[in-house]
């Protein structure tokens, strides 16, 4: 995935342990997640048919995935028929190369960008920089992250970890023209961003976007946004390049009637987001390129349990209800996809060979709040448990589990083991020694009873 995150060291527990020491971060996160959570609950509660919409959303995505080959070909035909160009990219490198070549053909060295998870995932900005192209993020939060030389920490509000004073400092430090006497009022900061980007929008020749949805039947792309930076990028430049994950498809035009209700309410907690743009192929004389991105998605699709993660519409409702995310923050997940969805998506897209990725399926208490909040009913706890079974455990842990399995599988062996434990119960310490202390550092070892239940039962049955 993103080259930005490849260097992220450690594992989730280590990163989280560090993050929870940061009280400012925890304050920001708690305030933000609880605010959005409340807004979402209000607007979801307004719709009497929310569960029906959710069931339809889930089924539409399952149908898309079941016949993804057919819908991809249909999408390609529809876009081509409408004057657009379609490119296919197996992985991040191939996608970055395609985008780089398309930009080179225009002769431009600067491009504007709409916030897009897919391009973050493939590390597009860094790849373009290496080819001498500067990509300017235009979403306010992405701008804060980019100017602050920082990492996003939330899917929807990437600068959720920054407060207004920090943002003002970043603007004063990094913007060429800052309005005089800039305060830390959100209105003043937004105005500074408007001025900073205005000229760039009006003169840019090439834009890069992702998409929230693609409609196979019609070849239409859909982008939801709030600020108008998306419309600026999608409308004004002569060339538009959209990099979209292959799972973003919807079979039919009418399917939007479901997702345009599910996404805004789940995501920003609004009845509708301020702006949604839809376009089909080349419109108003614009040169349009669609890059269809795999980058591990077909591997996820091959997993019967894990494939449901591809239903995700990146609303981030699961982040906002997650007790683990609320305390650890987005950076601890070491991926552009944080929170519960990140804990199942990242290990599947990247594999679980690194210490970090192997630790992600454990970044959860399995409370299930994410499943309940998910507008496409992804059973995140189910996938987490399935992935835990697939993680390659340490040899000592595997040996321990094999021994436990050998004993627990046979009632004679279990009875013997229980009697042995009972006999030496006084010798068992409250805290385990050596590496086993990792278990008892955070929990008590259960007391061993004088007599096992089985023996007690046997004795009383006889009596």
């Amino acid at each position, binding site marked *: 995935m993103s080259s930005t995150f490849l260097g992220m060291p450690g594992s989730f527990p280590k990163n989280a342990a560090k993050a929870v020491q940061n009280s400012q971060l925890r304050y920001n996160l708690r305030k933000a997640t609880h605010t959005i959570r409340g807004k979402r609950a209000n607007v979801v509660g307004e719709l009497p048919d929310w569960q029906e919409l959710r069931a339809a959303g889930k089924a539409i995505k399952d149908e898309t995935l079941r016949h993804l080959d057919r819908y991809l070909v249909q999408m390609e035909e529809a876009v081509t028929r409408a004057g657009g160009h379609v490119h296919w990219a197996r992985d991040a490198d191939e996608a970055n190369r395609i985008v780089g070549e398309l930009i080179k053909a225009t002769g431009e060295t600067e491009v504007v960008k709409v916030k897009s998870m897919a391009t973050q995932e493939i590390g597009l900005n860094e790849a373009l920089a290496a080819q001498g192209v500067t990509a300017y993020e235009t*979403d306010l939060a992405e701008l*804060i992250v980019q100017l602050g030389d920082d990492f996003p920490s939330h899917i929807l509000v990437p600068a959720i970890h920054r407060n207004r004073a920090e*943002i003002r400092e970043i603007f004063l430090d990094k913007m060429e023209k800052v309005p005089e006497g800039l305060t830390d009022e959100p209105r003043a900061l937004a105005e500074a961003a408007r001025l900073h980007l205005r000229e760039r*929008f009006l003169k840019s020749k090439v834009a890069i976007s992702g998409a929230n949805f693609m409609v196979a039947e019609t070849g239409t792309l859909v982008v939801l946004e*709030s600020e108008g*930076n998306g419309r600026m990028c999608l409308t004004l430049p002569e060339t538009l390049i959209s990099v979209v994950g292959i799972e973003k498809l919807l079979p039919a035009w009418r399917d939007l009637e479901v997702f345009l209700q599910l996404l805004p309410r789940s995501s920003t907690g609004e009845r509708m987001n301020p702006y949604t743009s*839809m376009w089909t192929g080349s419109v108003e004389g614009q040169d349009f390129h669609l890059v269809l991105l795999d980058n591990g998605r077909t591997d996820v699709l091959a997993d019967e349990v894990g494939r449901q993660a591809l239903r995700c519409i990146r609303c981030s409702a699961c982040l906002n209800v997650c007790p683990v995310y609320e305390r650890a923050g987005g950076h601890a997940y070491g991926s552009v996809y944080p929170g519960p969805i990140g804990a199942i998506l990242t290990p599947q897209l990247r594999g679980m060979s690194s210490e970090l990725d192997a630790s992600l399926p454990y970044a959860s208490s399995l409370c299930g709040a994410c499943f309940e909040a998910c507008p496409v009913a992804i059973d995140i706890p189910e996938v987490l448990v399935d992935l835990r079974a697939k993680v390659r455990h340490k040899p000592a842990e595997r040996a321990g589990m094999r021994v436990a399995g050998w004993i627990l599988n046979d009632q004679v062996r279990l009875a013997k083991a229980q009697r042995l434990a009972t006999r030496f119960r006084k010798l068992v310490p409250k805290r385990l020694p050596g590496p086993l202390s990792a278990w008892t550092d955070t929990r008590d070892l259960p007391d061993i009873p004088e007599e096992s239940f089985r023996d007690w039962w046997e004795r009383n049955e006889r009596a």
Partner: protein
Amino acid sequence: MSAREEILAKVRRAVAGAPETSVPRGYRMSNQVSDLVGLFAERVDDYRAVVHVVPAAEVPGRLAELVGERRMIVPEGLPADWPRGIGGTSVAELDAADGVLTGCAVAIAETGTIVLDTGPGQGRRAQTLVPDYHLCVVRADQIVSGVPEAVARLDPARPLTWISGPSATSDIELNRVEGVHGPRTLEVVIST
């Protein structure tokens, strides 16, 4: 093998034998709303847009009042008795204008949304984006109750812009600020 062939082959291998699905559409296709105009006005107002409900005959006069001295972009296809505007399609011309006056293709009561499809009286997409003030006229018969009816009325071959209030951001400590890059003021006239 090309990337296209390889991705399609991997997809086919991955889903071979997976169960078929059917889509349950038990959600509402339309809502029983007794006062579409009232609900639409209330929901647009929630986004802190300015809303006026005006009898059709009084619309031209009201528009003239609202436009006042502003130098407005007025696309072709609007009624002849509406305020005259300046032309302009280049980015510099649009940036220099004070605002834009348009009609719309459809409006949604439940979500307070206006949809433009670049048809007559709506102009190109840039015309409703670059100027800082957007004055939009919605006819009562263009208002539908919910999202499904709007989707059914729209033509995907046209570029569509769904507008729900003025541009906004909540990126700084989740404080909503209206007016970032799109028109900072949205004023809606509902013609009844």
